[in-house]
């Protein structure tokens, strides 16, 4: 029983990690309707920046979260403005997706050029220390990620529901042309949305870097799971993505123990297909109402 509870705890904590990485992706997915294949590489870039900030400036990785959020917001806005927006007029919407694939490959190779293939470990004072709850153990950094995941989802939820900009973003997601007719500057909304999505990755990078070693391909390890989380939760649904992430974390942890570590992906993707068959819009999808 102790082992089972520890597995559940590990699964929830892993879910927190997936959640914090997936939030930005679901935002971009749900509102811009863009599959951003460079999402993992934005995380990778943020993790390298965290590594630089901790080793060269001697700062705690968590202190780097606010500047990283800002830097990645700017990077996100720039990507939307200078790479994706010019492609909006392209005959085929898939061109944008290919552009993100290209961006992803370019960023990985840029990192290989700058940092080499070696791993970089971000120093982390106490972040990797375990906390004991009776017989159970949780790592500080994971608990922080879990809490941050809840905070980001709640914060973004209120932002989308209450603020003027949030409403404009939702309006654009629901019907782009109608929003435009109502005076919403769609291009600006897309830039802001991509910026917010990337900013979430900035926060994720500052929290993930101290618990997970950084390498040029680190983004590819997470991005596939992030896509599953996003689709499972219902594209664009923030709390859906959070619950989807916890679910994937639990399945990962339990199947790794009770079945086999090399079969956990079989279980995760099997479950994924099953849920899509039963609920094609995901667990918390908006259904047919949205565009």
């Amino acid at each position, binding site marked *: 029983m102790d082992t089972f509870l520890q597995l559940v705890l590990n699964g929830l904590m892993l879910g927190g990690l997936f959640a914090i990485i997936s939030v930005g992706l679901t935002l971009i997915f749900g509102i811009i309707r863009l599959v951003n294949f460079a999402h993992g590489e934005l995380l990778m870039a943020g993790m390298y920046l965290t590594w630089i900030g901790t080793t060269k400036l001697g700062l705690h990785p968590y202190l780097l979260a606010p500047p990283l959020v800002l830097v990645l917001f700017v990077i996100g806005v720039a990507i939307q403005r200078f790479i994706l927006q010019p492609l909006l007029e392209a005959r085929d919407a898939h061109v944008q997706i290919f552009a993100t694939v290209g961006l992803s490959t370019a960023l990985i190779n840029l990192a290989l050029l700058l940092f080499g293939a070696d791993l970089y470990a971000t120093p982390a004072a106490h972040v990797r220390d375990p906390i004991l709850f009776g017989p159970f153990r949780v790592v500080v950094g994971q608990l922080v990620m879990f809490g941050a995941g809840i905070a980001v989802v709640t914060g973004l939820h209120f932002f989308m529901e209450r603020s003027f900009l949030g409403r404009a973003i939702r309006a654009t997601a629901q019907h782009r042309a109608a929003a435009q007719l109502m005076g919403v500057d769609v291009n600006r909304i897309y830039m802001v949305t991509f910026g917010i999505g990337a900013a979430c990755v900035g926060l994720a990078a500052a929290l993930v870097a101290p*618990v997970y070693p950084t390498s040029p391909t680190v983004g590819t390890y997470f991005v596939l799971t992030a896509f599953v989380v996003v689709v499972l939760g219902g594209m664009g649904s923030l709390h859906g993505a959070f619950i989807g992430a916890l679910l994937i974390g639990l399945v990962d942890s339990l199947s790794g123990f009770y079945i086999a*570590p090399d079969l956990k992906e079989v279980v995760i993707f099997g479950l994924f297909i099953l849920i899509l068959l039963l609920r094609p819009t995901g667990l918390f999808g908006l259904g047919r109402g949205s565009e």
Partner: protein
Amino acid sequence: MIDWTGGRRLMLGALAGLGFGLTASAAQAELRLGALFPFSGELAVLGDESWRGLELAVEERNAAGGIRGEKIVLVRGDAVDNNQAVAEARRLISVNSVRAIFGTYSSARSQVASQVAELARIPYFEMGAVSDAITDRKFRYLFRTNPTARDMAARSIEMVTNAVAPGLSVEPKALRLAIIHEDSLYGTTVGRFQAALAREHGLNIVETLPYPANIVDMSSLILRLQAARADVVLQTSYQNDTVLFFRQAREANFRPRAIIGGGGGYSLRETMQAVGAEVIDGALNIDFTQFAINPAAAPGIETFVAAYRARYNMEPRSGHSLGNYVGAKVFLDAIAAAKSFSADDIRAAVAAVDVPDGQTAEGWGVKFGPDGQNERAKMMGMQWQDGRLVTVFPPNAAVSEMRLHR
């Protein structure tokens, strides 16, 4: 546009003529040998480190008058991927007319390039690729000096039975052994050999767990090892999964009595730094001969390190240069002893090589089996001690005592 094309044709023609002229004059007093390594791409660092070993061996030989008065000239081929490895092997053989090809560091590239050489009847000398499949094909002109994945597995099991168990004052059979490995060809090959050899020795395997190398969470795997009460963990891994395993084992307070790793992930300094010197302290590791070894067991290693420092103005980046240096010396000696530079004479001379154990700077000897594999090649047992990777096994090569918990 037309002018440009015409100009280019003219230039190509001139270049071809120049190339021809060079080839014709070179044939008189030069022995040309191919050097096929990944010089660019993601394997470039260790590919280049391997090349340096070959280069040093050739420069040493040339300084001593070359082979039968002929100066050895190395022609480089860049095996950046499998297709390129094939193309470069073809170029070396047909355009540069090399007498033999040396290489290759990467197993996959060795596998395909050696096939080209075999068909062209050109000797292929492997000094770094570890996949057993390369020599399992029993090629006529293919020889390999370095130890393979099977040797890695054999050494790890030998270390369990001959060093870890006696060190803990228990019977080897009483140890609860767990084998974990990443599930690509590399980890699977070593893991299978380990399981087979452990069963042969009657050891008690409590878990065999393959996992994908891009795994992001090993906590369930570690819980399984804890549930199975594993005493000794054998891990064959890359860097990312090695770091993850040590970090999460510490977080879960999993402390087996010995952890024995294999190769890449465990030997790198960056792994130790990422995990922390105090966390990885005591971890055992099987790999090619490294530099912290008793020089009496590896005669010539000090000369090599001195030559390397003088030539490249830095410390060797890994043991790959040493392995290639030792292998290249063996093959160059054999070529010098051959009746002529024809493939069959070189082959006969290489097949006759007989260097007793402990007589090379790698610590092992050389005797090729019918499949072309060096039957005396062995891996060494190392341990992380106070932030340094030192040789601890076999005892005659050790520079430090093996340290075991409890």
